[in-house]
């Protein structure tokens, strides 16, 4: 059941990416100029309204060197960067609050700009004003035809975070084993699972899984809710799938607690795991 769901997600995502690649391969500069004047090339974040045209100067000053004039991720620095800059013409984004395969909300893009993406060359651009960021979100949306025809997905619901208990941390370990997080992230969360060395992103470039033991920020945020969101929406464009069909909300919180125990910082979760004597999950079977 789990495997089927994962395969189904992967197939849907691959089909979407393939469709995007096919569609975007034909994107021309003239089309992008045309899209610049459409309602889709705007953004709405709270009380802010972003105007794509107002961001042209900032994009040219700050972004073009990596993301390129056409937003295709082929800026002059792209050849030196790993991971490669985001290709906006595909409109496939890692950090979303929306289900896998859907477009992110304006708020998602807005927050990504300010937060940056750890373990990449994308720094936190939190020196921009809120208006500048809103304008840049609108600008990003003029690069892909997907914004002309699709609406962003509906953000997933994140239930209130329950209290950390030994039972939940232990249950989280079971989830970690059951959905085979260890295959990529390793039994101890060190990013060294048996599949780690074979992973590629959707464009065929090697990619590494997150190393929990290193303790760096997560790609899409640093809070428990961010971690919950990451594995429930997946990181589109990467091998990290959405587990929304495989993990119930309460199980997701259990997993968050167990993953926290794998990080090197002192935490209640880590103390509980130690007191319980939790050992790394078995990597020889699919059970705990």
């Amino acid at each position, binding site marked *: 059941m789990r495997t089927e769901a994962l395969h189904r997600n992967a197939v849907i995502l691959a089909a979407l990416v393939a469709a995007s690649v096919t569609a975007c391969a034909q994107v021309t500069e003239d089309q992008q100029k045309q899209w610049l004047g459409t309602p889709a090339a705007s953004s709405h974040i709270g009380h802010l309204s972003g105007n794509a045209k107002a961001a042209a100067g900032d994009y040219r*000053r700050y972004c073009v060197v990596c993301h390129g004039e056409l937003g295709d991720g082929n800026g*002059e620095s792209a050849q030196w960067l790993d991971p490669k800059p985001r290709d906006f013409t595909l409109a496939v984004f890692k950090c979303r609050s929306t289900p896998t395969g859907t477009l992110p909300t304006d708020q998602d893009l807005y927050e990504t700009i300010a937060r940056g993406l750890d373990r990449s*060359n994308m720094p936190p651009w939190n020196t921009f*004003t809120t208006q500048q960021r809103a304008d840049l979100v609108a600008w990003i949306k003029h690069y892909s035809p997907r914004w002309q025809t699709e609406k962003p997905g509906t953000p997933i619901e994140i239930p209130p975070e329950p209290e950390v208990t030994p039972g939940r941390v232990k249950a989280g370990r079971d989830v970690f084993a059951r959905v085979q997080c260890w295959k990529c992230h390793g039994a101890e969360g060190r990013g060294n699972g048996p599949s780690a060395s074979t992973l590629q992103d959707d464009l065929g470039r090697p990619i590494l899984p997150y190393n929990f033991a290193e303790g760096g920020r997560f790609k899409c945020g640093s809070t428990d809710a961010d971690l919950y969101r990451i594995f429930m929406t997946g990181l589109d464009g990467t091998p990290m799938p959405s587990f929304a069909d495989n993990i119930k909300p309460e199980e997701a919180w259990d997993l968050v607690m167990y993953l926290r125990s794998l990080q090197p910082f002192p935490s209640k979760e880590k103390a509980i795991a130690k007191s319980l004597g939790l050992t790394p999950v078995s990597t020889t079977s699919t059970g705990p």
Partner: protein
Amino acid sequence: MVSCRRFFVAVISLSCLLASFTPSAQALPAFARKYGLRCSACHEAWPMLNYFGQKFKDNGYQLMNDRDSPIWQNPSYWPMTLRITPYFHRESTDKLPDVVDAPGTTNPSFVRGLTYSGFDHSGLDILTGGTLEKNISFLLVPSADETSAFHMESANVRFDNLFHSSWFNFKLGKFELDNLVSEKRILTLSANGGAYQLYHFIPAGDANIFGQIGDNQLGIEWMGHSVNDRTRISAAIMSTTDGSPDVPYGKNAYSGFFAASQAFDVGKLGTDRIGAYAMVGQAPTVFLTSGGVPIPSTGTGNKSFSREGFVGQFYFNKLNFQVVTQHGTDSAWFGAGFGNPIDNPGFPNNGPGVTLPAGTRNPSWNGAFIETHWVENPQLVFIQRSEWVHMSQQSIPGTPSNLGNTDNYVFGFRYMPLMNNRAGLAWHNEYAWIRQRGTALDGSDTTSSSVMSGLDFDF
């Protein structure tokens, strides 16, 4: 006496002005190479920092994206940048002592103008900087003047984000003061426009060279800032040496520099910032002598000085203003010419029994400049600066109230046809005009002008 002082003032002022044309501004393609960013990501117009560049600097030359440690760099990466500016220039001064026809003259009738032009080159900056480890940064800038005489422009190590807080950063060594409008990032380069007069102003007859906030200083600095750099605050303690090594002046003379600023989002216009700064310090006036010659490092008899003012950076889309004000005060002893017999053996030494001339007062002055930039795009910027420094109180009674007042106007543009993540090239054009009141031998004003056109490049 007044004529003699004017002569010295004229000579020293012109020497300072010409010597000031060592564009040791700090723009590092080494950082651009490291992070794959263009100059424009950090520079409003190279080398002037924008907010992102200021935050990058405040974070210890780190983007804070886990790619800051040198371990992430290709082993062949060498964090070094060279910068120099070949140029053509024309310099003109209307009233100089006629030392050819009347060597050593102080006679007011022997003054004449001087104009010359030619091809030239600036000094050389060798800029190296980056991280020794995550959250330990450095900057080392050996710099040569145009005659290839080297000095150490910057040499410091900084411990960044101590206790995982952006409010705890400590720097030790020779460093750029935390000026919001830093002369090290000035966009103008000519002999008469390549420095902020306000940052180097010394009243006529005054001998205090230690209050020059445009110069890098030797000391230790604490700096803190909010995560998005909107709030910045710093305090530094420096040896009162104007950045000279070997503590050549006072035995126990220190100065402090303090700065704080706050930025505000102003919607579609961008981000504006206002702040204040102050430099307070003491410098020696009493030196031991040997055969009448002052001995370095023996200075005592510290007297005080201060510089304080407000700073603003205001953005209106493509137009931005930098405004700096300053009120400066020196001890009456400096005003009377005491304070630096080491560099100027002819200046008086405050030895036993020496008293101030009757009625001598603390010299004070007020100044301001407004620098305007029209940033058409990251590759083309038009520059204008108007600067005024006027005495509010002369030290010696009877001195003309406007003696030494300085007005400076600069216009220019920089076009950067080449601006990538490896190198920068700017075609720089500038005209600067300066007037100093009453500093000619005949008591009239001295005016000078510069015209330059050059290629400012780094790689």
